[in-house]
């Protein structure tokens, strides 16, 4: 999936997410299966699946809500849907190339400023995670209980949010300056050095995504 044109990757993402959201249990099962399959081939299976426990309480909560409303099957599907969407997002992040994604969104006529902001924001996430990890280590070394019981843990982590925000804003400002001194301005048109070329396998993948999406539409109707 990594070597496929980003336009085909985006089409598959849209099709699978649509399936998971609107095609009931089969769509959710297909999203989970495809997501796991892509992750398994990406070499980031273990790392990516570590996200699942963080959304597990939400998935269980939503599932139980539906179950207690008298629809246990619907509850199970709703809970699984949350996990499936996380797995699919992780799989897409594992195979997508930020630069290619900017090109693909540009092909879809999305303004460069918007796509660039989105992709740059996504790039800042792991950096912010590293910043948060350093702040958490500092707190641990000062004896602040950030790994203890939930209420206290929540309060301790909340203390780190303001410094994290400051660090992230500073990082964003430095990045903005770096763009400015490389002649970037939103007021001027720019060219884009794109390497996107439709090859046969890309067209097949794109066609496959359209077929999948059509199947979802048929199921919904």
């Amino acid at each position, binding site marked *: 999936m990594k070597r496929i044109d980003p336009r085909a990757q985006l089409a598959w993402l849209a099709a699978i997410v649509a399936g998971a959201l609107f095609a009931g249990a089969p769509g959710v099962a297909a999203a989970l299966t495809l997501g796991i399959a892509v992750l398994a081939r990406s070499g980031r299976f273990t790392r990516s699946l570590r996200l699942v426990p963080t959304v597990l309480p939400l998935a269980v909560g939503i599932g139980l809500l539906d179950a207690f409303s008298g629809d246990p099957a619907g509850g199970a599907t709703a809970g699984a849907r949350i996990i499936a969407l996380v797995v699919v997002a992780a799989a897409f992040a594992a195979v997508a190339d930020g630069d290619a994604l900017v090109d693909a969104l540009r092909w879809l006529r999305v303004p460069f400023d918007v796509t660039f902001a989105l992709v740059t924001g996504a790039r800042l996430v792991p950096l912010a995670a590293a910043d948060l990890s*350093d702040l958490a280590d500092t707190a641990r070394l000062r004896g602040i209980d950030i790994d203890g019981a939930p209420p206290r843990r929540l309060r301790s982590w909340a203390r780190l949010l303001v410094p994290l925000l400051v660090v992230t804003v500073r990082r964003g400002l430095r990045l903005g300056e770096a763009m400015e001194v490389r002649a970037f301005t939103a007021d001027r048109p720019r060219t884009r050095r794109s390497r996107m070329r439709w090859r046969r396998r890309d067209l097949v993948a794109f066609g496959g995504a359209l077929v999948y999406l059509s199947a979802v539409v048929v199921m919904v109707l």
Partner: protein
Amino acid sequence: MGERVLVVGPTGSGKSTLLRALIGLVPHVSGGDLTGDVEVAGVHTRGLAPHDIAARGVALVAQDPAETFVADRVAAEVAFGPESLALPEREVDERVGEALEAVSLASAARRRVRELSGGEQQRVAIAAALALRPSVLLMDEPTAHLDEATARAILELVAAIARERGMTLVLSEHRLGIAACLVTRALVIAQGRLVLDGAPRGVLADPSVERLGVPVPRSTLVAAALALPAPLALTPQELVARVEALEAAWAPPAPPPAPEAGTALRFEHVTYAYRSAERPAVRDVSFALGHGERVALIGPTGSGKSTLARLALGLRRADAGEVTLAGMRTRSTPMSRLAGVGGLVLQDPTRQLIAERVEDEVASGLAGLPPSERRSRVEREIERFGLGPLRTRHPLTLSEGQRRRVVLAAATARRPAVLVLDEPTLGQDARQRDALARLVADLAAEGTAVLAISHDPEFVADACERALVLREGSLVADLPIGGTPVQLRALADAAVPLSDVGAAVLLLSRRGTPVAARTVDELVARVTAARAPV
């Protein structure tokens, strides 16, 4: 046009502000009042935004390239500037190829920038600037995050490109021994004013420059003290070449005393791997640190230094082997008990400030102590680090140097058994570096073992008595840092960067004159003594 200018000065003297003014970030982005006129590449900056100044041939390379990357892949990163100029796609391609060729990264065009080494990342940042085909290239401490050898390679590369293209280079740099050899002119800035302007060797020969806190190369200080013939030596090689044949040799001094009994930290066959990694970050590492020992942890980027530091403090738990911190096994001891005995000061102090006032930050690790003891410790550290006037300020509103002092105060207030310093001299001037070395000595005298991760050979020589060398997660050398040729040869063989004095001692010994010295004063005294008739 075509001048290569070195801008030097103590930390906070205004070097970065000067460079930022040259590309219009001051005042257009930073704000503030600009009086007078700045003209660069034929344009006046007052009426132009930085992107317009960049479009007219001025480029800036920042200290940390990783913070300025806007793309995933090398080629896309380098193309960003020409694309912003709305050049035709073919010309963008041409410029990308040319710029990558200039920095010897043509084969890396498809690689991800975040997977490159620090030196390669800085080359990408330089290529990205060159792709704008600037007539003026500004560089703000471009080697601050690099080791000595990589820094030399980068500076030599940039100077060669500037020479070849007739490009004006304005370089702010702390590694003066390397940089001063590559430029045609030096400016000294202090407290926002230009205090000296001239040929690099002439400027560095001025005694007032060192007094300002400029990190004058120690080879230069030795050469000046010995009144060696002109031109002034900037490197150990130049220094030794100017020293006449010496008449006497010296026996090496006695080895330093062994550390006092008692172990602050012990690693026994420790291995640790991140869950997503293919190979362990730390592999079968064993060593011990005595109370009050001062140890440098040295190794290239990605060799496992930061992971080892976190293992030492109990922030990561070993997969195999045993880490014992102040008598406690970190694997089985709760963090709440380990917290008081380990301290960590990171490169970027902003990532360690979690309180709303300086005095609360310093007190933040002392919650378990009686109030009177807590107060007395806070007062002591506030006094030690000169934070009195800042005590009620929000730490995040302070300057970088002040923030670093706050983080150090917060770490030392707990009187840790082991204190880890991660690149503590980054962006520090000579006076701050000396103060830090004195602090390390004071802490060691109080019984704290200090583990300093550092690329700075002068700081390592001043502050540490032992070097641990990591490579690909393994401990490949554990050596004393001394001043004898034998000790220095062992360090050099283990790829430990030598201080100027250390390198000069080694060169003298290769010339048949065994000298032992660790400091400028010792080397001057010994060479002076050797000049006297026997």
